[in-house]
């Protein structure tokens, strides 16, 4: 570092504006030194401070009777009965994954698992939501290969199953892929651990990997746009060591079974800085660190490097006095570093010492409370002109439209991805990847958690508010479709540069839509993460508010799957079908158009239809169920047939205008269910009583899929089309 460089220039290099630098000086009452400036700049980075999004995040509903802990801690916590809690969060690792896909994705998974076990929960399921660029873009194949291997490499070694996720492709992600990772854990509801430090004089303990020179200023990197030189940022990406994290997990859980821990915080973004400051701030105490005690990987590390390193697999804890030796013994048993690196003080200051000298001294409150918060100007996205189904051309033939859609990158089977993830370890996976939601049994019980990640970015690009609402609604629907009661969500808000009003407008709109849907569906937000500046050379990604939802199945015997179970059953379409084709995959993949408004989201209908389907599942009236989403009714039906290896014959109703709208339209709040034929009349009657639109569209039979009067195609042919694309693409030279 060039000592003579003017400090304010350096501040700019660290991502602080001139005004923010002035706030630093006034908070300190003097010029900061290099270490202090580094600390301010990461704490005030977008990644750590949420300075552009905070105002809007506050509008999201976060409470319900079953919410134990909402946003603000390492992860959200909800009550799942019997004295147990589910702990979960989703987080982005977009910027590092683009620069170095394997390590970027791996450490994303490692980081989110740490967030969950920091709260005292054993991670039981990993999920992800991935967006890649155009398959024809020269980098896409390499990025997919690296990201998938990285996610698997970390989760597989940890022994936590990666049970599902979603993967989309669009050219808007050519320069900024999205890697959103979610972890769900289970804990005893009365044994949740929080991060507020307490007890003046209590020891501050560092456990985990040694601190190295990797990932320095990663949070700052993640708070800026990319340009053509983004490869040069590789040194800001951390390197993961899942084996050490496995040891850290086991050691932490073992210590958590005792009463030694006062507070605990994982070292994620901004490492030792963020973890100590947050613990001190939440507890309203001061904190002193002796940097000579911090386990380091190499000699000669400066205070700046130690404080800004984002080396992985590290935790900071405040222990009860006198428990140090017992705690140390546990970490030594697992072969993990354990060091007392400081203590809590009553000064309200964050003081760093090295070689006997004070190398940093910052008042905690201003560092957190004076963090800038912006009400950035925003402009709403122009609504798209209406696009009635009748104005959308029919395909040359419906069968080839089906074949195109079932094989397109967004719908093509993703087993090439999930087969690289251990999705069965822990031996509680009751529903593997490929269905509407993953289902994992709560160990040792008959109940289960359902988990789904969802977002349809093309909807949000056309109408951010509707896109935000739809992401929540689809997630809720996916949980419902397996028979679960949706409980709460975590979100991962991925957007471009918020300093551009049109991008800020997307963020504001999406949050408003999400809030509406979460309120209407009693589906509060309990944790989340915001990733901004996902753009390269001024080209932003599509607005992508990824939603990770968790639901509860009281009895695994009542779980539903998408697979058709028997021939001769009646297929019933639940929900209204208007044949909405604006922003549909049909439009994009068959007609090469991306226009029109996304489908309307009627939250009252979502709730009514979903509650109805869930009650049918609970009453064992439904043998198979699938939510209708990308590609519409015919794609949903084809997927049900493939999963069950049983065909179907359906008929387009005479009043459907036009057939391609009915088959491929993406109207929301819909499910396709299969019921034993003798139950069909009762189901329809019950639907009528509940005010839920429902109609028989055909029956299950044979080994073909037939749309009467239009075409018959063998399941083998559909399967080939569905399964071919991704492996063929990935094995191409």
């Amino acid at each position: 570092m060039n000592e003579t460089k003017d400090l304010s220039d350096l501040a700019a290099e660290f991502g602080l504006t001139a005004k923010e630098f002035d706030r630093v000086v006034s908070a300190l009452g003097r010029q900061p030194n290099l270490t202090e400036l580094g600390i301010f700049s990461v704490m005030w980075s977008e990644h750590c401070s949420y300075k552009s999004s905070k105002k809007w995040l506050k509008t999201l509903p976060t409470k319900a009777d079953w919410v134990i802990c909402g946003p603000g801690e390492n992860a959200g916590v909800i009550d799942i009965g019997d004295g147990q809690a589910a702990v979960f969060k989703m987080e982005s690792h977009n910027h590092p994954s683009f620069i170095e896909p394997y390590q970027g994705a791996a450490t994303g998974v490692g980081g989110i698992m740490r967030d969950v076990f920091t709260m005292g929960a054993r991670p039981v399921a990993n999920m992800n939501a991935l967006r890649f660029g155009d398959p024809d873009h020269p980098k896409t194949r390499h990025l997919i290969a690296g990201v998938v291997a990285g996610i698997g490499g970390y989760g597989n070694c940890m022994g936590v199953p990666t049970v599902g996720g979603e993967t989309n492709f669009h050219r808007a992600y050519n320069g900024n892929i999205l890697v959103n990772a979610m972890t769900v854990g289970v804990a005893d509801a009365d044994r949740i651990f929080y991060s507020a430090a307490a007890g003046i004089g209590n020891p501050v303990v560092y456990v985990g990997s040694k601190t190295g020179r990797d990932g320095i200023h990663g949070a700052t990197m993640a708070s800026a746009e990319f340009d053509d030189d983004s490869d040069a940022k590789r040194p800001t990406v951390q390197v993961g060591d899942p084996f050490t994290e496995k040891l850290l997990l086991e050691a932490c859980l073992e210590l958590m079974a005792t009463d030694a821990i006062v507070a605990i915080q994982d070292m994620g973004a901004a490492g030792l800085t963020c973890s100590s400051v947050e613990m001190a701030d939440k507890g309203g105490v001061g904190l002193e660190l002796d940097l000579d005690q911090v386990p380091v990987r190499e000699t000669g590390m400066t205070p700046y490097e130690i404080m800004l390193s984002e080396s992985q697999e590290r935790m900071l804890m405040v222990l009860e006095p006198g428990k140090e030796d017992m705690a140390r013994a546990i970490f030594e048993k697992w072969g993990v570093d354990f060091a007392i690196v400081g203590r809590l003080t009553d000064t309200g200051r964050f003081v760093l010492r090295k070689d006997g000298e004070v190398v940093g001294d910052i008042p905690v409150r201003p560092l957190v409370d004076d963090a800038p918060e912006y009400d950035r100007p925003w402009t709403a996205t122009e609504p798209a002109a209406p696009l009635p189904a009748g104005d959308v051309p029919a395909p040359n033939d419906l069968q080839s439209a089906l074949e195109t859609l079932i094989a397109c990158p967004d719908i093509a089977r993703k087993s090439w991805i999930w087969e690289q993830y251990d999705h069965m370890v822990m031996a509680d996976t009751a529903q593997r990847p490929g269905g509407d939601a993953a289902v994992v049994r709560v160990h040792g019980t008959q109940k289960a958690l359902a988990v789904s990640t969802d977002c349809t970015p093309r909807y949000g690009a056309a109408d951010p508010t509707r896109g935000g609402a739809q992401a929540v609604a689809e997630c809720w629907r996916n949980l419902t479709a397996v028979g679960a009661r949706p409980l709460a969500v975590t979100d991962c808000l991925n957007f471009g540069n918020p300093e551009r009003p049109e991008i800020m407008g997307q963020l504001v709109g999406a949050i408003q839509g999400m809030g509406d849907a979460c309120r209407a569906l009693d589906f509060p937000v309990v944790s989340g993460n915001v990733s901004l500046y996902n753009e390269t050379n001024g080209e932003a990604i599509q607005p992508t508010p990824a939603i990770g939802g968790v639901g509860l199945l009281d009895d695994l015997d009542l779980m539903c799957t998408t697979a058709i179970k028997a021939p001769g059953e009646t297929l019933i379409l639940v929900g209204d079908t208007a044949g909405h084709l604006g922003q549909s995959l049909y439009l994009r993949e068959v007609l090469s158009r991306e226009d029109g408004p996304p489908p309307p989201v009627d939250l009252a209908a979502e709730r009514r239809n979903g509650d109805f389907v869930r009650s049918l599942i609970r009453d064992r009236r439904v043998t198979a169920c699938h939510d209708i989403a990308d590609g519409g009714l015919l794609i949903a039906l084809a997927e049900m047939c493939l999963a069950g290896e049983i065909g179907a014959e359906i008929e387009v109703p005479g009043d459907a205008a036009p057939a391609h709208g009915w088959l491929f339209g993406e109207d929301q709040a819909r499910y396709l269910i299969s019921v034993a034929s003798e139950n069909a009349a009762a189901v329809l009657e019950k639907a009528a009583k509940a005010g839920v639109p429902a109609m028989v569209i055909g029956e299950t039979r044979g080994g073909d899929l037939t749309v009467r009067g239009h075409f018959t195609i063998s399941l083998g042919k559909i399967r080939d089309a569905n399964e071919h694309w991704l492996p063929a693409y990935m094995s191409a030279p």
Partner: protein
Amino acid sequence: MQASVIVFPGSNCDRDVKVALAESAGREPTMVWHGDSELPKSDLIVLPGGFAYGDYLRCGAIAAHSPIMREVVRKAEGGTPVLAICNGFQVAIESGLLPGALISNANLKYICKDVHLRVENVHTCFTAGYDEDEVIRIPIAHHDGNYVADDDTVAELEDENRIVFRYSGPDGTVDDEANPNGSRGNIAGIVNKAGNVLGMMPHPERLSDPVHGGTDGRPIFDTLAGSLG
């Protein structure tokens, strides 16, 4: 049956196999830490799946030198049945309990999916619950499960009927198409000369409860529990 499950720091299928053993035997196995140098009385020793010491080097290479493995090898040589699953198979090979080597999958990727196995030898204490040439469905989950051995070793394994499981199609056909990882001769599991050490890459504990979507792995645990009391 009193089973002992060896727990290495990076084991991650130790609990899964414990559940399967307890279910079949009606008794909890003893979990034995890798750093221990003594084994409790054991009718069966299980080396579970996972990443014993991270396996950043050759899988199982470090685990083979852990204190407990000296004792496991001694007991195995004395005739105690040893069930070595996945990473346990790798550890058993590195410890010299079984011949050959397990190298990276032919596609160089981690593979987690159900595969079919043809049961080639039902005359072992592990597989007596299956029928001759029965085809079973059990998941694999590994990056390094590609079994290799020299010609003499493979000939010996064949001659002595020590190949217990081969990867096959659902109809029992053993061919390249049914081979998920490139293993020589589609070998998925073998026993030692004495027949008391079984190493297998597939995970029987993962299809041993109806919730898993199948129970084809369960006969292994039931058979052991039945014969070992």
